[in-house]
């Protein structure tokens, strides 16, 4: 298991190298550069712009620019954000906790809802309850996230006044106090709910279908032949098998925990990574954009590795020796 994990981590190095080239190339391919986002070309002399370009190294050959960027990366230096006038590491460091809070909350909502709905629907397939669950799920799946977010803001914030419509609740309270954390949770709940509800459908459906399939397996008949109660059969024999496909999805979720939700964060003006990514692209802040993309790539790789390792924990057949 340890050797397997180490080998998987080693394989990540060449993958990351290739990802870094792609990310760098994409950033170059974006129209404009750091200067065009900063300086109004109409009011600045071309000589000054040229001087600045030279100073920033933007006129160097591409491979030298890449080598400089990559060497800095290896020293944990992701460059500087021109728009925010701060190091990219500290900028992302400030945004990441917000995004993690939002993602974890939405994942909890997804998993709890999907677990109970999927289990119920799988145990009682083709009943009214099952059809209701499926109907609600497909409705949620069909609604685009920005529409759902606007409706949620309209109903819960404007009409009912239960939750704030914008912000992430960081300002206004002394960090670390209970009031501070409550305010953050209060601000995060609504976007988390919208985010969570939207992906619940696929999880519920996965669990439901797998439970239905597993319940017709031979080992379920064996368990019945032993006089095992129906509840135990579902909770012990079937659920242990049906949870396996859900675990794969969890691997992909790791990336979304870090990456945040671009649309939802933007609508709620939630100060997370997703919102940062969008604003950086708009401002041609390529250092930030590249750093966020790289971080997403790493998160995806780690997520896949984690899913594979978790697989082994749940399913002894693929446990790696």
């Amino acid at each position, binding site marked *: 298991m340890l050797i397997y994990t180490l080998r998987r981590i080693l394989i990540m190095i060449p993958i990351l190298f290739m990802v870094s080239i792609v990310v760098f190339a994409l950033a170059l391919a974006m129209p404009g550069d750091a200067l065009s986002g900063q300086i109004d070309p109409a009011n600045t002399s071309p000589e000054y712009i040229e001087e600045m370009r030279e100073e920033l190294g933007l006129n160097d050959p591409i491979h030298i620019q890449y080598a400089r960027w990559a060497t800095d990366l290896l020293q944990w230096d992701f460059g500087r954000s021109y728009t925010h006038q701060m190091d990219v590491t500290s900028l992302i460091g400030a945004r990441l906790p917000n995004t993690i809070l939002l993602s974890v909350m939405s994942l909890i909502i997804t998993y709890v809802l999907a677990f109970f709905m999927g289990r119920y629907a799988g145990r009682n397939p083709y009943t009214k309850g099952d059809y209701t669950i499926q109907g609600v799920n497909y409705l949620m799946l069909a609604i685009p996230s920005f529409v759902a977010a606007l409706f949620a803001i309209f109903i819960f914030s404007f009409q009912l006044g239960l939750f704030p419509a914008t912000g992430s609740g960081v300002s206004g309270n002394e960090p670390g106090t209970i009031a501070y954390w409550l305010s953050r949770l209060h601000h995060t709940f609504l976007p988390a709910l919208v985010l969570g509800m939207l992906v619940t459908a696929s999880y519920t459906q996965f669990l439901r279908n797998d439970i239905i399939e597993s319940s017709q397996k031979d080992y379920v008949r*064996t368990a019945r032949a*032993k006089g095992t109660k129906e509840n135990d059969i579902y909770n012990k024999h079937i659920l242990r098998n049906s949870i396996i496909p859900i675990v794969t999805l969890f691997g992909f979720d790791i990336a979304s925990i870090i990456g945040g939700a671009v649309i939802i964060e933007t609508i709620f003006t939630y100060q997370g990574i997703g919102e940062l990514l969008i604003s950086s692209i708009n401002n041609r802040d390529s250092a930030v954009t590249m750093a966020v993309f790289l971080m997403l790539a790493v998160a995806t790789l780690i997520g896949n590795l984690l899913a594979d390792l978790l697989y082994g924990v749940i399913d002894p*057949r693929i446990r790696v020796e």
Partner: protein
Amino acid sequence: MSSQEALLEVQNLHTGFTIDGEMHHAVKDVSFDVAPGEVVCIVGESGCGKSVMSLSIMDLLPRHNGKIDKGQILFKGRDLASLTEDEMNNIRGKDISMIFQEPMTALNPVLTIGTQMDEVLINHTNNSKEEIRRKSISLLKQVGISRSDQIVNEYPHQLSGGMRQRVMIAMAIACQPQLLIADEPTTALDVTVQAQILELITKIQEEVGMAMMLITHDLGVVAEMADRVVVMYAGQVVEDTDVDRLFYEPKHPYTKALLDSIPRMEETREELNTIKGIVPSLKNMPQRGCRFVDRCPAAMPECSEVDPQLGEVEKGHAVRCILYDTSHPEKRAEV
């Protein structure tokens, strides 16, 4: 056999499946008894209703479309078909237990052997966890699994097919049942392992003193193990007698044809004897007359007209064929 002696009495059992909203009987009017300690073999080709019949006894039919339609299954005088789920759970695994055909899929892949062994004892005894685990290990020893104290912590995929079937047998005998139903327990195993498993089943059957219903299509196994034999064809019992009379005085043309299909050591021949044709499928079952008529070497015009009845030609030997007046619905009364 009088009803006081019988451990299990199946009476007029009809079991069917709902296909496209219509009920099709896979088991039609099956009756037979099993006495305490007796080994009854159920024989017949694939698709003749043997497995469905045994699943009906345990109430293990597929829930979504299988159902006992008519008839009674009396176990020590109680009708199993009328019991509630909870009452049935108290009987399954304790008084009646079952071994299945496919040991490769019959065990849960994600639970350890020990967990699955313990389960049957947890269901039916009040012993502590430690006692139950000790009992599980000793049961595994009893079915011939060496290093059983390690096997309990292993998973099914780490065991061979024969080992898994041994585990299934150990689970089945854990509570010393009075009746063991074995549904083709050796079909999926290697030939060398088959003999070992049958030997083990016989040994344990004698040790525990339980009755056994062995479902098989291997007449060699029947000769070896059976006290009595019930021959089934297309969901019906066609012959029911003791093992000696089955082999030496078979009455039903189907039984005779089955016996003729066994290759013999002393003969050399190019081709094996077979019964031409196949068992009619559930949807194409003849509605009138004998169900074997299309494949029967002794078929008469009347066979497709008259429904043959299961009647005793002599004491302890019942046949369903109108070659015998005891099976003819009209001549029957006169006999």
